[in-house]
């Protein structure tokens, strides 16, 4: 049935959206921490695109507001630099508070992943 397929697709999209709400901020912090140098929005989006699967494969326009929030929360700081390719770019860099948050969030994420995996183990037959 076409209609039930549509519905299943919509439910999957909703689930992925809810998943990404929490994980995108963690992924952005991780990308910036791993890079070790300031990156601008487009670079971050492309880095994430290379590894992004599942919930992280959403539209990249969703990343910019999250970057802004992380900056407002003091986990990132940013500066603007002119570029010859186009408009001036806003570079983001992870702060000390950001590193701290990343450690805590990563631990929370691993615990969540393990327990979800453990529960899913039960249905794998």
């Amino acid at each position, binding site marked *: 049935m076409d209609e039930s397929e549509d519905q299943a697709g919509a439910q999957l999209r909703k689930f992925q959206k809810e998943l990404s709400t929490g994980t995108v901020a963690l992924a952005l912090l991780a990308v910036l921490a791993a890079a070790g140098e300031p990156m601008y*929005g*487009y670079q971050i*989006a492309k880095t994430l695109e290379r590894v992004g699967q599942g919930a992280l494969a959403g*539209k990249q*326009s969703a990343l910019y*507001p999250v970057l802004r929030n992380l900056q407002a929360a003091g986990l990132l700081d940013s500066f603007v630099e002119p*570029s010859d390719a*186009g*408009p001036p770019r*806003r570079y983001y860099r992870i702060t000390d508070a950001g590193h701290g948050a990343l450690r805590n969030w990563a631990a929370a994420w691993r615990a969540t992943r393990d327990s979800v995996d453990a529960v899913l183990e039960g249905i794998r037959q």
Partner: protein
Amino acid sequence: MNTRKLPTTIPEYLEHLRRSLAGADPALVQDALYDAEEYLRSELAEQPDKTEAEVIAAVASSYGAPDEVADIYRDTEVKVQTALRPPPPRPRSSALGRFFGVFADPRAYASLFYMVLSLATGIFYFTWAVTGLSVSLGLSITIIGIPLLILFFGSVRVLSLVEGRIVEVMLGERMPRRPLYTVRGRSLLQRIGDMFTDVRTWSTILYMMLLMPLGIVYFTLVVTLLGTALSSIAAPVLVWLGIAEAGTSIGGWGILNYDGEVLSTSMPAIGLPLLLLFGIVLLFATMHIARGIGRVHGLFAKHLLVKTAQHD
């Protein structure tokens, strides 16, 4: 549904995005356009062998088509607003509760502070605008005035963003967090021309000049109202504590006088409870007035500092 063809150039894409965001908060529109332009320009610069139309077609699946981007920004904004803002105080049911509940509203204190601050910022903006405009216009008959004028217009844009931040933090009105993009692909001279014809430059200068008289009024209101309210509260308390004398008149009627030796109030002892009540009511009324002015000023600032129609 949407029968418009897909955009093939960056300005078209941005225009499409702006239309999709119609009715949204103008400050959100400005931020969304800034982000989109950064992404599109970077993508175009990364892939020099592709045409603009091809790049934009590819971008629709990675960054998102204008309509999708508009939805994402609308969505995220709601989430962020609820996450970052302090929770609004629980609405009180009784009229009395509503009147005194203002005491627990951080917005009222912030507005009060903004009103005091606006005297300083108002004088600065006014001086800056008048000096900048008159010096550079005056010198424009010689060649040196032209670069000065351009610098001045640049500074107006920066100050507009700064005032926007102050207004958002203190008055809670959503203001842009990113500057306006200038239209690309235009020569330096054309872009300088754009600065002159941009309504926002002129409305910002108008705002900068208006903030001085407004700041004086705000400051006077706060100082007068708070002074009257606080001394009306202090006078009865001081009399009851035996520190001040009641019913004396020194050089006219005064709520609370100090002549170098004695503290006194002109209110006779019998009227003191009434004076205390008046002071308390006035104090709370002042906070209501401050919160109200803050709200109105926020809208006023948004109107003059953020242009609703961008790139039109």
